[in-house]
């Protein structure tokens, strides 16, 4: 006995619902907890201090990013001669030294040594600050494991103390709140803490351990063995091959290419050649096998 249209629709809905429930029961879903600044500071203090010094020095990824965070006409990706990234403007301004280091430390009022170090740093000329942060960043880079305790002696001014106190603040959990509470009581924008964490290597190390690196098809995957956003395979694919994999403008190039391909998909019925593929490949004879057999 054949089913009616309505019965078949209900059957399909039933099968899909049942499949969903079975997959959810058997496989569940991933939920690796988010990394806090406190966790980062506790588990990878050397990376945290190195990153904090880079934020103070203005040499971190965010500090040199360009639009929409930093006003730097020389930074940002281009599509050929078009500086698309700069066209958006600096709409989410971030001053990494002030927002990530000096600002949070300035709220700590019960530490005379810190107050003195802050006053000395803020009272120094830009060149002097740059000399201190640059020298300390170099020294950290040369120290075993980038360990601040093993840094060679040198003229770093108040920078080691500032970085050390920021580490203490982060370990206590205070910095998580500080970076989020810059605009009022209710907060929904995690840009600053996320940019800070992403400037270090701890987040990426965790991601690579989960096979989520950019060269590991990371954009379409998720933690655990879950299928993730498999539908992003084509977008992710371009990042794995030259010239995209080695270009400084990879994101702009891939986005432009995907825009063109998406437009081609949408306008396929109007594109000569592409729209003739179905007739030429004759896959339709498999789809309508029954029809062609009965109408032979």
């Amino acid at each position, binding site marked *: 006995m*054949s*089913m*009616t*249209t309505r019965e*078949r*629709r209900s059957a*399909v*809905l039933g099968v*899909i*619902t049942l499949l*969903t*429930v079975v*997959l959810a029961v058997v*496989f*569940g*879903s991933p*939920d690796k*907890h*988010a990394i806090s600044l406190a966790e980062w500071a506790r588990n990878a203090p050397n990376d945290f201090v190195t990153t904090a010094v880079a934020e103070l020095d203005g040499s971190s990824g965010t500090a040199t990013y360009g*639009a*929409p965070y930093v006003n730097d006409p020389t930074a*940002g*990706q281009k599509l050929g001669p078009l500086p*698309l*990234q700069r066209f*958006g403007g600096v709409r*989410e301004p971030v001053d990494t030294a002030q927002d990530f280091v000096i600002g949070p430390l300035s709220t700590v009022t019960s530490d005379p040594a810190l107050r003195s170090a802050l006053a000395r740093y803020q009272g120094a000329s830009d060149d002097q600050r740059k000399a201190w942060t640059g020298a300390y960043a170099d020294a950290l880079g040369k120290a075993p494991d980038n360990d601040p305790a093993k840094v060679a002696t040198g003229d770093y001014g108040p920078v080691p103390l500032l970085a050390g106190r920021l580490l203490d603040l982060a370990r206590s959990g205070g910095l998580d709140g500080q970076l989020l509470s810059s605009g009022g009581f209710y907060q*929904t*924008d995690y*840009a600053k803490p*996320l940019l800070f964490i992403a400037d270090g290597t701890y*987040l990426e190390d*965790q*991601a690579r351990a989960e096979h*989520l690196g950019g060269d590991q098809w*990371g*954009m379409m995957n*998720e933690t655990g063995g879950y299928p993730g*956003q*498999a539908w*992003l395979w084509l977008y992710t694919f371009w990042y794995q091959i030259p010239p995209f994999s080695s270009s400084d403008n990879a*994101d*702009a190039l*891939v*986005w432009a290419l995907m825009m063109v391909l*998406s437009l081609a*998909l*949408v*306008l*396929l*019925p109007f594109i000569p050649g592409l729209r003739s593929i*179905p*007739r030429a490949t004759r896959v*339709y004879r498999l*789809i*309508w096998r029954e*029809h*062609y057999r009965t*109408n*032979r």
Partner: protein
Amino acid sequence: MTTEERMWTARLRNRATRALPPDQLLPDRQPAYVASWIYVFGVATLAALLVVLVSGGILALEGPQWYHGSPQGHFVNSLHLWSVELFFFTMVIHLWGKFFMAAWRGHRAMTWVTGAIAFLGSIGTAFTGYLVQSNFDSQWISTQAKDGLNSVGVGAWFNVLNYGQMLLFHVVLFPLVLGFLVIWHVLLVRRRGVVPPFADEAAAATPVPQAPQGEEVAS
């Protein structure tokens, strides 16, 4: 024209009825060639979307932190995840099927166009879902994806680091647009009907059976 006929409600009703008569809007029979298994995937996509909406609705009802701390919440999150996976799986097969059927033939180009845009819109909607999980995946995906959006100058408006904006994109803005596209797509399918087989050497000899002569099958 009478006063009644001049009313916008009457004009809209008449226009809608002309474009989509009730038996065309909600057919109970389809042409015989719709018996092919490939047609199931269109309905399956809609069925999966329904499960996505219901499971997502329950998550919205309880709030975005619910599933981190409660087994019930985690289970509903799993339902939401797997229904999305099934939604894309069935939709991609539906898309490939329609491609090889050249389903845009016979004034059906707009049906293809709305379907293709809905597919791309679904990718954007699912992507924002991954951003609002408020877990490690959200952190990693957002810090990676920002570079793509920023590289073309739209990152400040589509700010993947802004949890509040992404949550609203995911549960309000994108579903509204996607819902509109899906309804438009389905109405176009109803209006134009499913695409008939190519009138090639076999079919050319015999006219394609049309409703209501065809057997009753799922559309």
